[in-house]
């Protein structure tokens, strides 16, 4: 059984912080399909379009019929552990530092044999369920999990090395004024975070969330205005060395497209908060977090952006707001690439219209703060990169994958 994680002792400032190392990142282009599926937590393999043989490792041609039609499909993740080993030493530094490391050979019911990481609670020869996880190189790897849940199983060192679990970690929520701030803080407290810093701009102004936030265990209110570079830098100087997860929920939203608005005033605010706010936070907090990704139980682990799903395709009712989110989305891809070497994970949570004042005229379904908070915590636990929160975001994702141009036309009607 997995041993429950203990709160880490106070950090000894005289000791050197362990440098982040990375598991092997090189993959063939075909194999990147695993990583793409892992980003959303899906277990997908190539399945031959002609003879339906399930393939593994990823191929360019079917090993049964030589067809090159090998689409990725969701596959039954059930299988059996055929053989196992515990690696005590490795030529690879990442695994050497983390040994012993358990791996095994799993016969998937769907056909292929898969070398996988093996969770500590899987018994010899047991039935297992494979999960597709991003490792700290940001590539998809397969992890054999026990069929049944076991207590504290998320504390397994190999699983925790792949997840962004908030348990015993310290989180910064950037905007305590956002209507989702209370739900986020509550969900994180329930997930076992040890500290929740909540940013608040213009503290002299009343904040309707403040009293509810202060009731959440572990919450500490901090002055933070993402439109003010010195405010962001000041907070990073204070808590940057103990921010393990940063959740950027700061958002400025007003309805309207280009012609509806007579000027660029709101667009300035949208870019200041939604785009430049992210950049300011990243420049202040990013380097410190990247340096602390191997810092023990409460190492820095993830950066979360709450982004409008209309970053993928513009919704002209909120046309300028969508554009600022598209900018933030694009910037997040740059950040993800810049975080890569450190293993710090960047998770984008794409949300549809949220249940708040600024989306009041829109029909349901809308994303409730609790639903958003639940998806953020689940995404962290599962170690995801891309989370689609709510029915609208999921629907948009599916249409986007099917064809972005068709979706663009659909967004303006005419897709009966």
């Amino acid at each position, binding site marked *: 059984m997995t041993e429950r994680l203990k709160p880490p002792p106070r950090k000894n400032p005289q000791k050197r912080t362990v440098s982040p190392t990375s*598991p*092997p990142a*090189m*993959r*063939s282009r*075909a*194999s990147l399909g695993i990583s793409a599926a892992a980003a959303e937590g899906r277990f997908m393999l190539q399945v031959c379009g002609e003879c339906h043989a399930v393939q*593994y*490792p*990823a191929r360019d041609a079917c*090993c049964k019929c030589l067809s090159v039609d090998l689409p990725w499909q969701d596959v039954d993740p059930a299988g059996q552990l*055929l*053989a*196992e*080993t*515990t*690696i*005590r*030493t*490795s*030529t*690879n530094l990442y*695994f*050497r530092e983390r*040994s012993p*490391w358990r*791996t*095994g*050979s799993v*016969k998937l019911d769907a056909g292929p*044999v*898969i*070398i*996988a*990481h093996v969770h500590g609670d899987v018994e010899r*020869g047991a039935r297992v369920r494979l999960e597709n996880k991003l*490792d700290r*190189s940001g*590539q998809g*790897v397969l992890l054999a999990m026990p069929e049944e849940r076991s207590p504290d199983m998320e504390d397994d060192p190999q699983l925790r090395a792949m997840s962004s679990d908030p348990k015993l970690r310290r989180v910064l929520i950037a905007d305590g004024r956002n209507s989702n701030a209370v739900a986020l803080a509550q969900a994180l407290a329930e997930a076992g975070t040890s500290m929740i810093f909540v940013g608040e701009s213009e503290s002299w102004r009343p904040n309707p969330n403040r009293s509810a936030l202060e009731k959440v265990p572990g919450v500490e209110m901090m002055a933070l205005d993402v439109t003010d570079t010195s405010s962001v830098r000041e907070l990073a100087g204070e808590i940057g060395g103990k921010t393990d997860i940063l959740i950027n929920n700061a958002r400025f939203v007003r309805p309207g497209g280009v012609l509806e608005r007579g000027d660029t005033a709101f667009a300035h605010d949208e870019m200041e908060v939604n785009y430049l706010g992210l950049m300011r936070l990243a420049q202040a907090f990013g380097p410190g977090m990247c340096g602390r990704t191997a810092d023990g139980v409460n190492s820095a682990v993830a950066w979360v952006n709450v982004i409008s799903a209309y970053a993928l395709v513009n919704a002209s009712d909120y046309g300028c707001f969508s554009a600022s989110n598209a900018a933030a989305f694009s910037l997040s891809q740059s950040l993800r690439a810049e975080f890569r070497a450190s293993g710090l994970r960047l998770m984008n949570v794409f949300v549809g219209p949220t249940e708040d004042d600024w989306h009041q005229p829109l029909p349901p379904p809308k994303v409730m703060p609790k639903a958003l908070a639940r998806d953020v915590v689940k995404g962290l636990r599962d170690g995801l990169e891309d989370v689609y929160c709510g029915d609208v975001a999921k629907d948009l994702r599916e249409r986007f994958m099917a064809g972005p141009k068709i979706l663009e036309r659909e967004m303006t009607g005419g897709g009966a």
Partner: protein
Amino acid sequence: MRRQNYDGVALVAPTTLPYQRYSIETAHWWIARVLKTMLDGAGVKPAELDGFSVASFTLFPDTAVGLTQHLGLCPRWLDHIPMGGASGVVALRKAARAVQAGDADIVACVSGDTNHIDSFRALLSSFSRFAMDASYPYGYGGPNANFALLTDRYMTEFGADRADFGRIAVAQRANALNNPGAVMKKPLTLEQYLDARPIADPIALFDCVMPCAGAEAFLVMTVDEAEARGLPYATIGGAIERHNAHADDPIQLRGGWTMDIDELWGMAECSPEDVDLVQTYDDYPVISMMQIEDLGFCGKGEGPDFLRDKDMTITGDFPHNTSGGQLSGGQAGAAGGFIGLVEAIRQVTGQAGPTQVTGAKRALVSGFGMINYDRGVCSSAAVLEGVT
């Protein structure tokens, strides 16, 4: 159609350079040196070579092609064998056919690799596409963990224990102590084997080979040519190879030999009990065990019992890996695919010196190579007979 035999083909000038743990030299250097040592010993001039076959992992960016210009060779028959542990017998098969057909008169079959600090890790990280995609990211610092899985499954399936594998390693160490070129110089007891540092359970230190630098080579020519030059030679009774056999076996407990074994013994017109010594590919003892079963010495899963009352040293009743093999001699990259073959040519031609098995006339050599993903893909074997 019955395969043509290998009549009229001679294997001569078995040559081994003493292995080194690390070398500052390149694979080119090791190959050049073993080639010169061999040609000088056999009295063959480089210009007389009209066939050249190379096996190496560390020649990059060169292949056999680059070596011809680098070494000033002008062959009319050129081959590059990328089959790792199976490459010796595969090189032999191809070269023998070239000589039989007259495509070449004298073929040098050469293997060599260097081992720089960190070059082994670099090789592993890009060993094959499947290894890069599906085994190296799982902590597999090399094939240790792969063979740990096979060993784990073999032990569970057939009730073998670690001592069964240990006896193979211990006997090879005893053989290696007679071989001045071997990397390992100290005796090994079964207790030391069992108590060794674990590497990837159930594999421990003495189950693993030590990567090193080295080179092995031999010449293939007609029997007439060998006799005219007064060179002792071996002939080929039979030889087989097979790739990606039993692809549907969920885990490798048998190799490709099982598909071709009847043909091997049929061609050689003898049976397992007729050989005087056996050279298996021994990157891990479990693989030697598998070969001894698959080559027909005993049934599947009976290897532990078969070997329990055998003496595998050079003076024993089942001489096995007489130069110490890779387990005690060291693994010099692709030369590991030649070590058993070159030693077998020495043995059946009475040139093995301190490791000579008395009266050895016939040897079985087998090769196994390329852990592409979860198993070794290439297998090969040959029966050699000595004429002195």
